């Protein structure tokens, strides 16, 4: 495997030199670690990259959010998809049914944030349980009734657009679950678990990695595998060596959305490069470079969440009067991204950009009274600006 890395390094140097008209070749961040061209790593000719458990959970999530808008589903069926038990027929995909993975067990379950805070972890899991239950008890019975302030039902977007199914406050529970999981599952597991030293260096991981000792029966070291699991929560349904993005309904999709905003073009590549270099650093046993990449990943993925939170609040302002269904749909997505802010991670710290109680405060502001039926543009601006102020972007940049 070392040979391969060196080989790729040599190739990339050749390319670099040949492209450069400048003799003064920039020195790499750390000459000891050079990322390969793609996220491909192997040992003795066998790939060491594996994140099938992450792919499985993303696929479970896709089935779950699709089922949330099928009003023939029962609460038990939806709960079974959220908290799958091995062998139960919760999904249409037999491989998912056979899996021993579950979404719920990894919801708000990171080592850094929740191993010593099961109180919040339980409260967050309970939020998802409640949204799922309420979808069945509040929204499904009113599926064919037009919603009004205080009463669940459906609203169709203007111009013959999509029909949205909302609770009495205008919230689409399916969006709360979908966008909330981006934070509670993907972001939390990546930023606060798998790229954390508490996980990467757990037990004898570092000594084993230094000695090239692989996990029992596997081609990878434990540390390599942990990093890959972080990678898998973002790219698990995508092409690891040439990510297409927008391949699932979770974080992968919204990296694509932000990338396609001209104000943030390049962010997708920054994230991918950091994953790649961090993994190469593990191979090179350079943990300084590894942890520097972890911080880049934390900063950039936190930005993805914050940008989308602000984006949806700002978009909703355009439709509050003219098109309630469109506005409420944006606000429901925004609700989920705001909820996800509590799982972000300021680089170099053990803290989110917004704490759970701050997030709860935003949610309370949005949902007071009749919720989205009552919310004002001033409130949406205030929350947007509060979020933007903690990041390197303006509300205007994120909002369009």
């Amino acid at each position, binding site marked *: 495997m070392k040979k391969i890395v060196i080989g790729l390094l040599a190739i990339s140097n050749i390319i670099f030199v040949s492209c450069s008209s400048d003799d003064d070749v920039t020195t790499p961040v750390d000459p000891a670690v050079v990322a390969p061209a793609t996220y491909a790593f192997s040992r003795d000719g066998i790939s060491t990259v594996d994140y099938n458990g992450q792919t499985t959970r993303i696929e479970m999530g896709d089935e779950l959010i699709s089922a949330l808008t099928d009003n023939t589903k029962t609460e038990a069926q939806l709960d079974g998809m959220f908290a799958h038990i091995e062998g139960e027929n919760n999904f249409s995909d037999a491989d998912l049914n056979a899996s021993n993975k579950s979404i719920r067990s990894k919801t708000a379950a990171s080592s850094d944030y929740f191993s010593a805070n099961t109180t919040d972890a339980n409260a967050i899991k309970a939020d998802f349980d409640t949204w799922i239950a309420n979808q069945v008890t509040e929204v499904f019975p009113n599926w064919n009734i*037009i919603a009004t302030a205080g009463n669940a039902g*459906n*609203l*169709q*977007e*203007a*111009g*013959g*657009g*999509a*029909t949205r199914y909302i609770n009495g406050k205008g919230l689409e529970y399916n969006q709360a679950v979908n966008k909330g999981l981006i934070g509670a599952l993907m972001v939390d597991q990546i930023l606060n678990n798998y790229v954390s030293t508490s996980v990467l260096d757990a037990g004898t991981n570092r000594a084993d990695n230094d000695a090239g000792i692989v996990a029992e029966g596997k081609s990878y070291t434990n540390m390599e595998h942990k990093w890959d699991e972080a990678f898998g929560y973002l790219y698990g349904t995508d092409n690891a060596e040439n990510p297409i993005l927008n391949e699932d309904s979770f974080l992968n*999709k919204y990296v694509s*959305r932000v990338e396609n905003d001209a104000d943030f073009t390049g962010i997708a590549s920054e994230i991918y490069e950091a994953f790649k270099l961090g993994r190469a650093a593990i191979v090179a046993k350079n943990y300084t470079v590894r942890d520097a990449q972890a911080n880049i990943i934390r900063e950039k993925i936190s930005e993805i969440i914050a940008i989308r939170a602000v984006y949806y609040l700002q*978009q909703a302002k*355009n*439709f509050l009067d*003219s*098109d*309630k*269904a*469109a506005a409420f*749909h944006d606000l429901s*997505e925004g609700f989920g991204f705001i909820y996800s802010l509590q799982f972000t991670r300021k680089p170099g710290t053990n803290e989110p950009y917004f704490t759970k109680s701050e997030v709860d405060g935003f949610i309370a502001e949005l949902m007071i009274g009749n919720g989205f039926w009552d919310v004002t543009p001033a409130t949406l601006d205030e929350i947007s600006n509060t979020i933007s102020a903690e990041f390197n972007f303006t509300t205007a940049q994120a909002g*369009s």
Partner: protein
Amino acid sequence: MIKKIFPVVFLVLSIIACSSDDNTITTPPNEGGNDVVFSRASMLRNFADNIIIPSYQELSDNLDALEIAKDGFIAAPSQPTLDNFRAAWLTAYKSWQRVEIFDIGKAEEIQLNFQMNIYPVNTADVEANVSAGFYDLSSPNNHDAIGFPALDYLLYGVGATDIEIIEKYDTDPQAENYKDYLSAVTNRMKFITQLVLSDWIVNYQNVFAASTENNASSAANKIVNDFIFYYEKGLRANKIGIPAGNFSSTPLPDRVEAFYNQEISKELALDALNAVQNMFNGISTVDNAEGQGFKTYLQSLDREDLADLINEKFNAAREKMQLLDANFTTQINTDNTKMTEAYDALQAAVVLLKVDMLQAFNIAVDYVDADGD
């Protein structure tokens, strides 16, 4: 979710011979005939006085006639009264093609386009409204159950034959409900059009003409954007691209405009292209005189080359569209390549309008593609 829409362009065509409509296209004046110095104010004045308001007036008049024809049909459902109603519907629908571009002022405020021409019509919603006997036609939930497409269904689609259709309004157990719905839809179209026309005459005409600044909220910038948006979405995508399958994995032949009528989707699309080209060239709806428009605006910026090129593309698109079957559904089902060729010809002008023309005008695009989720 359509975020915004817009402009229109007209072209001068090589033309008159190509047009089935007497009043849409005119030959341009002689070279060098633009003696009037161009100004944004004079362009907006020409649009308001000679294109927009006369076009709304014509639509309003035709909707008055439609209401009378509807009353005649309801009073005595029969083949002659049905034929009369259908003819009035077609006349009004054709005049609608001239105003859909102007999504500004009161029309933008009340979402006139969404209330007049969202297709495909949601026939399940129409039937549910009819059965219920009560409905709020102002609700966005009903945007796809009202307007010209709803009448298309009610006049051509509720029965397999004309006899069956007439029975719906005569001997059917729900005949009274059908008649009520027909009335409610028709009357609302007249009412909201009148609302927009009145606002233009009483209030907006001068506001519009004076709003010449170069910023995102000025009428000048908005009408330019409205024009391009309409060309791209209302004409190119809705009438041709979507049914031809350019935005889906397979063609969607039931998405054509006036699907139930089965004879006029091409005619309406050509009317729309003429409306676009006439506005581009500043041609009056009243007397076909050429005045200030996007063409003269480009000429004033020494971009006559671009104006000519855009007109060429419009003409080329018209030629492609004229090759199509009168019923786009038939065209798609027999030889969809001709549809996609028409789409490609329309698309050829999009970049010229959206990039080159806007750069020349130094105006920013004010709409984006919908998020899609």
